[in-house]
């Protein structure tokens, strides 16, 4: 600590630009917020699914409302190009370490390249649709991301159950019910952001 204090100042006792932190694209604050939200989304969706007692359509919709609302709040908190891609990357790394890839929620680890591309496409859509300052472009980006991630997961499911397409149709129906929750979650997220702004928790 003494060393770093003495190194942080020149001979005149002034702090120079060389001693300031390196200017990075991703600030530590933003990285921590992404990590916290990724954990929160994983925990809350898992707990709602377990508390709902398995294949309960109500909790299936509810779980997706919560996940999408949290994703919208995350995008409001970190308004930077690449946030969805980084979110997918971080969630995939942790899923890989914890569960060898989450086969229940987002297909499997072999779907990760597709999910990364989906995240990047949605980040580009947000920029094209008016940037990270506009609410509806964020909503469009999250909506498309949810759609693409589910389509990729269904593609993996088709490969797993290709011998019996009827099982795949059941999966499609379940995913469609879940996506209904995502659409509701987009509105819920915007509403929740307004409440958080009102409470002074989101300042921008």
């Amino acid at each position, binding site marked *: 600590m003494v060393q*770093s204090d003495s190194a942080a100042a020149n001979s005149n006792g002034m702090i120079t630009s060389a001693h300031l*932190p*390196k200017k*990075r*694209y*991703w600030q*530590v*604050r933003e*990285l*921590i*917020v*992404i*990590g*916290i*939200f*990724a*954990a*929160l989304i*994983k*925990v*809350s969706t898992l*707990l*709602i699914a377990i*508390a*709902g007692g*398995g*294949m*309960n359509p*109500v*909790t299936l*919709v*509810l779980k997706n*409302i*919560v996940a999408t609302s*949290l994703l919208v709040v995350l995008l409001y908190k970190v308004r930077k190009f690449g946030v969805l891609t*980084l979110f997918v990357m*971080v969630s995939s*790394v*942790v899923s*890989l*370490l*914890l*569960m*060898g*890839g989450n*086969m229940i929620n987002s297909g*499997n*680890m*072999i779907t990760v390249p597709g999910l990364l591309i989906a995240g990047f496409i949605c980040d580009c859509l947000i920029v094209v649709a008016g940037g990270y300052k506009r609410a509806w472009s964020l909503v469009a980006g999250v909506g498309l991301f949810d759609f693409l991630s589910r389509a990729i997961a269904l593609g*993996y499911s088709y*490969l*797993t159950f290709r*011998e*019996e397409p*009827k*099982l795949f*149709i*059941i999966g499609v129906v379940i995913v469609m019910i879940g996506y209904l929750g995502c659409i509701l979650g987009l509105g819920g997220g915007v509403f929740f952001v307004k409440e*958080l702004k009102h409470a002074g*928790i989101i300042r921008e």
Partner: protein
Amino acid sequence: MQELSGNSKTTYPDKSIRRLDVRTKMVICLLSSVVVIVLKGVIPLSFLMAASLVYVLFQKRFGVMLICYGAVALMGLMALFCVRIMVVFIPEMGQFDLSMFFVPFLRVTILLNVILALALSSKIQDILTSLRSLHLPLFIYLPAAVMIRFIPGFIDDIKLINQSLKIRGYRINPFTLTFRPFLTTRLLFVPTVIRALRASDELVVAAELKGVGYSERISYYKTNRFSGFDYFIGAVAIVFLSFACLLEHQAKLFV
């Protein structure tokens, strides 16, 4: 620092699959998920199922395994029931043939076994150490470490909120979630999000005070190294997966 601590490698008292590095188990999961998609034959998939069952049985967590198998079996039965209903109402879908479900069932069981072997044997500290060993850039490492560190914390927070709701006479269970979904979510979700946002603010301040992100490179206090046992199990897994692929190829030759 590693030399000073003399604790550069995690050690386990028993000689079970728990000694394996998380990265080895991760690679086994990844390879298995690719191979089971490629395979179609009953014999190669049954062989892999038996091998993966032996692998997960080394965990000796029979109670948790039974619960997981029970949950998957219940979901499978529900799916079969839905298919049965679908075939009755839409006869164009074809006949209800139970044997057609066997191959997808084998695939799911193999994946479940390898995932259980990873999930049941890894502690949060080992996972964090393995994450460091992956040598990822800061912009992936930092949020991933925060995420892993905060998952148990959030589970505890949700338990606390659940207990406070119980004191006020409101119980969170499948019934309340099904019949009063929005009220239940509001009661559980809003305090959790506010706690999470506060936690992130506190963590940001702590990280800035500790100078996280100031240095060019991350220095690692403790990293994992592969042992001979990791190489052995990794090689066995590759041999088994290759053998299963060979069985599939052989079956095609005979047909």
